């Protein structure tokens, strides 16, 4: 039993089985290929990933264990007009998120207006009182955002999640494209695909535009990627981005606060940093401010930050925008700050802390997806239609005991895109995470993103930690 019982939309074949425009060029090429040769290239790609060490570590497993995220060689393709529509919606949403964060840490107009309830902040660990009354350099909170989109029909894209805490996966967007171009160079001469390879340059430029007041204006701002270290699941990405941006890759132990600046220990002494693209959570930024028990972090970095000595991207306290209860208010948030109707709809969401909603969810749990408000990575959720009675009963207990910790959504029939399976092309469910950069110079969306694909037939879980794979994501040029 799975969501395929609902109407489904295949992005290659549409509803009627005919090849959709987006895929016409690709399919022409595909039909000329020898399936065996394709499979051979596919195996070569996997070997290439292993050799180059494009791996991720799985939480809770042996430290040394590194896994490959399976890569599927059939691209996910979006046309230029489709992308233009999506971009407008994404642009609007990220602008609203940033304005919302500024408001949240200043006058809280949206709460005063009653559009968003005050309880969202109360007891929410992602809300950082230390950020109140402080405006980050350039007024930017969401330097990098990953917006997770799902599709249910030709013109129906929904936002499933906003990832502004520390969105990851962009290295796969880049490496998947590199791999595709290495495997099938002739394909790219036949189909014109918008390039993504300049993302690191765009990121570096966008971050540099957010230099703190303490930056002396000479040359370029000193930029570093702050990583938890080589055992982190996304370490590959951290080193990859640092390398591509020409930034330093630092750990907290390389940094200390000196003379009102955050400085890194180089072979020639301490050198100040201007912009820190941190890939560690708020909790581990500053033991003096957040977590006195933590051995990690840079003592005093928050004081420097508040005094204008350094830019931290994304801004501390941004993580609250990943909250799934808050997500349910995004339509109101978008309207409040942009004065426009949301161009990209949310997925319908029930907040289990509300009595009526909880009743509905309990009555219909076998058809719903129930998620933890603060959960991520596909953990701690229930997919009603694919769960056993026992699993549902167990989850119901948890839900009843702590309803404010959960939201529920209908089980969407995510669109499918074919993968190269043993017996040829076979449809699998996908989502899409475009990466969005924001600086005082505006919003910059790289045409493409990370397409995650559930490799198991019928499965709706695309997370790499749970058997998902990735595809190259194409935006066609006009």
């Amino acid at each position, binding site marked *: 039993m799975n969501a395929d019982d609902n109407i489904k939309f295949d992005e290659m074949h549409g509803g009627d089985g005919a090849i959709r425009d987006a895929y016409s060029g690709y399919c022409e090429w595909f039909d000329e290929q020898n399936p065996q040769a394709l499979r051979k290239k596919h195996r070569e790609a996997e070997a290439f990933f292993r050799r180059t*060490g494009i791996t991720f570590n799985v939480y809770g497993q042996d430290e*040394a264990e590194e896994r490959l995220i399976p890569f599927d060689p059939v691209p996910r393709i979006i046309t230029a007009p489709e992308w233009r529509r999506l971009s407008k919606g994404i642009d609007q949403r990220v602008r609203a998120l940033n304005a919302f964060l500024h408001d949240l840490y200043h006058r809280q107009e949206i709460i005063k207006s009653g559009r968003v309830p005050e309880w969202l902040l109360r007891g929410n660990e992602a809300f950082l009182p230390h950020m109140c009354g402080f405006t980050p350099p350039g007024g930017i909170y969401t330097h990098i955002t990953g917006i997770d989109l799902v599709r249910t029909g030709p013109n129906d894209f929904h936002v499933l999640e906003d990832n502004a805490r520390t969105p990851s996966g962009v290295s796969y967007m880049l490496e998947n494209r590199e791999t595709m171009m290495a495997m099938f160079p002739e394909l790219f001469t036949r189909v014109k695909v918008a390039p993504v390879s300049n993302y690191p340059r765009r990121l570096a430029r966008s971050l540099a535009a957010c230099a703190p007041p303490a930056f002396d204006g000479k040359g370029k701002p000193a930029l570093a990627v702050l990583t938890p270290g080589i055992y982190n699941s996304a370490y590959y990405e951290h080193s*990859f981005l640092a390398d591509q941006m020409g930034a*330093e890759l630092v*750990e907290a132990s390389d940094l200390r606060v000196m003379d009102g600046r955050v400085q890194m220990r*180089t*072979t*020639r002494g301490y050198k100040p940093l201007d912009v820190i693209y941190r890939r560690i959570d708020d909790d581990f930024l500053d033991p003096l401010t957040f977590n006195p028990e933590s051995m990690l972090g840079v003592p005093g970095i928050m004081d420097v930050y508040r005094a204008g000595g350094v830019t931290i991207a994304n801004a501390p306290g941004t993580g609250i925008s990943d909250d799934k209860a808050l997500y349910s208010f995004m339509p109101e948030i978008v309207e409040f700050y942009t004065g426009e109707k949301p161009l990209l709809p949310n997925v319908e969401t029930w907040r289990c802390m509300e009595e009526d909603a909880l009743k509905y969810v309990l009555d219909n749990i076998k058809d719903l997806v129930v998620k933890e408000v603060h959960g991520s990575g596909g953990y701690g959720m229930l997919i009603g239609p694919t769960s056993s009675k026992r699993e549902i009963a167990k989850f119901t207990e948890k839900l009843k005991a702590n309803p404010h910790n959960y939201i529920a959504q209908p089980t969407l029939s995510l669109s499918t895109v074919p993968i190269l399976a043993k017996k040829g092309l076979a449809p699998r469910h996908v989502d899409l995470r475009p990466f969005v950069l924001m600086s005082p110079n505006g919003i910059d969306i790289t045409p493409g993103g990370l397409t995650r694909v559930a490799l198991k037939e019928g499965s709706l879980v695309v997370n790499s930690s749970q058997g998902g794979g990735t595809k190259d994501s194409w935006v066609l040029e006009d």
Partner: protein
Amino acid sequence: MLGRSANGLFWMFRYLERAENYARLIDTGFRMALTRDSITAEQEWGSIVETAGMAEAYLEKNGTYTGMQVWNYILRDKDNPNSIRNLIGQVRQNARAVRNVITSELWEAVNESYLQMNDLLAKPVTQINLGDAIAAVKRESTLVRGSMDGSMLRNDIYNFARIGNYIERADNTARILDVKYYVLLPSLSYVGSSLDNVQWETILRSLGAERAYRWLNAGNMEAKSIADFLILDGRFPRSLAFCYAKIRSNLASLALQYGEELYTHEVMRKADMRLHDADVDKIFDTGLHEFLADFITDNNDIARAVEADYRFVE
């Protein structure tokens, strides 16, 4: 560059060099043991473990010195921090940590070596596949050094890597000589005996020097000339003189790039002077063991000065 990255590069190449040296050592032990009776063979293996500096830990785990036990302990024992498998793991771990300052070519060479060696050393190594394992260690370390040579800029990053490489190599040569120093002492009763020849060959082999030495000395096996070759001959890439010439030149490049000489350079100059002033007669007069002990101390001092001057750690 970050001090931590310099540290990572330095140790990456120290561990790589160490792995290769251990592979040579096992190779030597194996060849020697093959031609010996079992009692001498056991002594031979014991001496290999001692040369590798693992005697104490080894004896805690194993009571006897059989070839298979010894080479598996050095090649792949997880509890042995200096087993080749662990060393290659360390090489890769350090390479990952400095991934953004090394070329993809170098990183891929390291990563592939690691995957290859992990496969080869997954199961206990028997006599039949020992040769393959040893050849693989030597080949992979040569590949890694070669990719660095062919792809990296000659800047501080390169220099820290090379300094680590040659500090380790000098240490290794000095230790091998020191463990066997008594073999090289001129003693009338032994001269020309077959025992002498075998022991000398052991030393030359474990430093990959037997062919080079023969070419240069037309087969003339003599203690002093072997010591002279391994300590002072600047043409041989594992001699102490050669290693120091390399470290000196890498330190000079660093001084040039950074625009200053540091305490390290002073330490290096002094150590260099002592080696430069030595000749083999003087070394034997003052005592080979004393000379080597001093050398190992000097070498450590250089390493420590580099670590401190270039802020490897907080």
